[in-house]
């Protein structure tokens, strides 16, 4: 196999072996170039295949294959990691050794974990290169207006009306006839909707403009017909501009000046061009929305389904990694990466026996905690508080046992296992405490609807959640060099009792 390794890699490897054994033993000098080559190969394959961003690109299948490849690479790397270990040989540990080790593991594992997301990144880049957000938003707006104008006789021009009758008491109790479910299009069909006082209070706050109070317990709501044939909110949201609402289309188009026949003909031709521009050639069109429109207004221009599918695909690809979507992906990945890096770090700095005992004890402790939670019959609203308190108690016990290593003369399996648990738990503790705090807030204020629809509050909650995870990783990083590492070193060199 050695003959297949490029000469420059061999030289780098030898140089690291003779100069930086700690770095050499992590195999980072091989792992990163190999992963980089994989990234380049996948990227090249993607660009060469010249995929149509308006079609289904089977990126999930690509991701599955790459995830499998990452897993194989990780296993091979882990097997190699068994070979050389400066720490376990009582070798000289350079300055900031623990940081370097942890960073090396995180870097390699991170590169492997992110590999399966590469197809999505590439598609996003391709989609953004081919269609700008302004272009997309303008085209969607133009198509919606054109379809509306070309079918002005078919679309409804009257605002719909919903009557609300308000009753005292809570919904669902004592056979009350009213329905406190969320409002949606189905209710348009109802002539009168019976709701509770509390529901109406919340609903009023969000729909002040559309509701008219007739009497103490009767309201009327006016609803503008849906004129959006293509959904454009995604394109507009990320573009940061106000989108053409149904009300705006009603005012501009339905109530606006009627175009001449020649203008309508031009509009029809232009619509065909735009349909063709966004035409998807997926063998199976998945857009159901167009069918619903068609059913509702009897409007279905030729080529609409294919263009709708193309726009769906395009928006998915363009905004896959936009902030809102990306954070939902990267937070779990960051947690997973931190967890794996911690495990690997512990594996490299523990007696094998201790590491595997820790895994076993971890599983046992988990089941024990589940049993405790089950038998205490915790109410679901108190779950996060009880669970968080239990984990916090564990953390303090583990910390206490870990600190004891400093004064120990003999090796203690219990203390070493406690130190391992502490290392794995600590990065997630700030996150857990923040979630406990917000869960308590939700519990206290959700019923009074103080927090609902408070976007600033939710933005702050999101920010605190993200920051708490980052803080946890930072705390782990600091402790690894100045607390966990030295304790692992001490524990590893203590004689057996």
């Amino acid at each position: 196999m050695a003959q297949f390794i490029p000469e420059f890699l061999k030289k780098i490897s030898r140089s690291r072996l003779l100069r930086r054994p700690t770095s050499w033993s992590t195999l980072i000098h091989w792992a990163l170039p190999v992963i980089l080559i994989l990234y380049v190969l996948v990227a090249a394959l993607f660009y060469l295949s010249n995929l149509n961003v308006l079609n289904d690109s089977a990126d999930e299948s690509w991701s599955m294959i790459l995830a499998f490849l990452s897993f194989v690479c990780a296993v091979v790397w882990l097997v190699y990691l068994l070979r050389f270990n400066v720490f376990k040989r009582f070798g000289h540990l350079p300055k900031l050794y623990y940081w370097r080790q942890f960073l090396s593991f995180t870097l390699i594992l991170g590169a492997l974990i992110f590999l399966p997301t590469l197809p999505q990144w590439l598609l996003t880049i391709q989609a953004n290169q081919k269609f700008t957000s302004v272009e997309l938003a303008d085209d969607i707006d133009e198509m919606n207006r054109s379809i509306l104008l070309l079918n002005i006789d078919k679309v409804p021009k009257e605002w719909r009306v919903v009557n609300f009758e308000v009753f005292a008491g809570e919904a669902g109790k004592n056979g009350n006839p009213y329905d406190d479910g969320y409002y949606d299009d189905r209710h348009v069909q109802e002539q009168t909707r019976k709701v509770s006082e509390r529901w109406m209070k919340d609903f009023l706050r969000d729909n002040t403009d559309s509701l008219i109070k007739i009497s103490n317990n009767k309201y009327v709501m006016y609803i503008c017909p849906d004129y959006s044939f293509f959904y454009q909110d995604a394109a507009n949201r990320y573009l940061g501009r106000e989108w053409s609402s149904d009300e705006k289309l009603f005012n501009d188009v339905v109530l606006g000046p009627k175009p001449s026949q020649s203008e309508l003909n031009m509009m029809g031709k232009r619509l065909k061009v735009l349909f063709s521009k966004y035409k998807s050639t997926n063998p199976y069109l998945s857009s159901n929305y167009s069918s619903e429109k068609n059913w509702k207004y009897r409007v279905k221009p030729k080529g609409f389904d294919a263009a709708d599918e193309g726009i769906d695909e395009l928006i998915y690809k363009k905004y896959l990694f936009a902030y809102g979507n990306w954070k939902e992906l990267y937070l779990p990945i960051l947690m997973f990466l931190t967890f794996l890096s911690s495990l690997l770090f512990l594996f490299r700095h523990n007696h094998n026996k201790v590491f595997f005992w820790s895994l076993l004890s971890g599983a046992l402790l988990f089941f024990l905690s589940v049993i405790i939670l089950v038998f205490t019959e915790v109410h679901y609203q108190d779950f996060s508080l009880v669970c968080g308190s239990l984990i916090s108690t564990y953390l303090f016990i583990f910390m206490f046992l870990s600190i004891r290593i400093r004064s120990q003369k003999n090796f203690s399996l219990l203390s070493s296992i406690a130190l391992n648990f502490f290392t794995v738990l600590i990065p997630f503790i700030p996150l857990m405490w923040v979630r406990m705090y917000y869960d308590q807030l939700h519990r206290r204020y959700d019923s009074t609807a103080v927090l609902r629809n408070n976007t600033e509050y939710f933005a702050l909650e999101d920010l605190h959640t993200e920051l708490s995870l980052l803080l946890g990783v930072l705390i782990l990083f600091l402790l690894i060099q100045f607390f966990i590492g030295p304790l692992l070193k001490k524990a590893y060199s203590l004689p057996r009792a």
Partner: protein
Amino acid sequence: MFRPHSTLVPKMFAPQIKEIQSSLDNKDYDLALRRILDASQDLADEAIVRKSMAISQEFEHNKELDLNAALEPLLVKMSQGLANLTVDQKLLLEAKKISKTYSKGQFSLKPIDVSLSSGQIIGVVGENGNGKTTLLECLSGLLSIDQGTIDFPESSHKDAYDRRHQLAFIPQRIPRWYGLLKDNLHFSASISKVYNQENELLVDFILERLKLRKYENLTWNQISSGYRTRFEIARVLLQRPKVLVLDEPLANLDIKAQETILTDLRFLSQSRRNPMGIVLSSQQLHEVEKVADSVLMIKDGRCIFSSATDELKGTVVELESNMDRQSLLDFFTSNNMKAHYNGGFYTIESKSQEAKEILEFLVRENIPIQYFRDISKSSKRYFN
């Protein structure tokens, strides 16, 4: 082909040079080369080390090489330097009244004193299951002690981890190595802060010194257990330990390999540049006694004999004879000698007679002798 020794440099005072000369005179070229490599390392002169290695390698390929001629200029060069090198014997390890009782099981190691200095070899002998490994593990910090103290007067490291780097332990079952053997040696040197060219030189040197060069590009599975022991010793030596503890290093080795390893350990412990103290356990009593400065005999967890402190009285010999067993035992009893039959041979004890006198007596009495050995000064006398 080989020139007589008289043509060598006439004035060489350093004892090592005299030893090398003697080996050359007796055509023990292998030993001469090993010793010249040791001497070159003592001088720590890179040019001399490289030259010594080159000659050793050349001789490996060409056994017809005129070694005297090749070594002459080198010996002249080394002579003065070696004469100026002095060796201070420093106390490396001192264990006082250390004892150990396992929480599970009945075995306990009774209080034992061990004192080890640089350049010294201590042999720990005894039957299986009597506490040799326990003692060695206690000394190397693998196992805690219940009572007593272990001091390392020469160690500057207060940290147990750093001390473990200088206190190397080679277990009887050596953990397997992964990857190329040579890479493992480079790795071992570099984790001991020996970098770059110095690392390459040191690894090459140790491979040459222990005659392992042929196997450097092999893997663990491709070498025999004897070579595994040698490679493990090479790896540990690259860490430049102050104390080397070996548990049964001679197990599974043939007689020649045992002898080579023991003499190498003897020479390496007495290095002028990196002297070290060695503690080794073995059941090969005679071989260990040949190289060890002192021997500890362990029985039932107790040190029943220490050659450093205990004086052996009386004469004990081993005898193998095809004479009828009962007749022979009666013969010794009637002549005021104690005799035990140990399966293969007899152990004969006498308070008044020397071994030579016993041998003469046996010859005189026409007792058939197949094997006779004086073990009066050996711990072997305790194996009954």
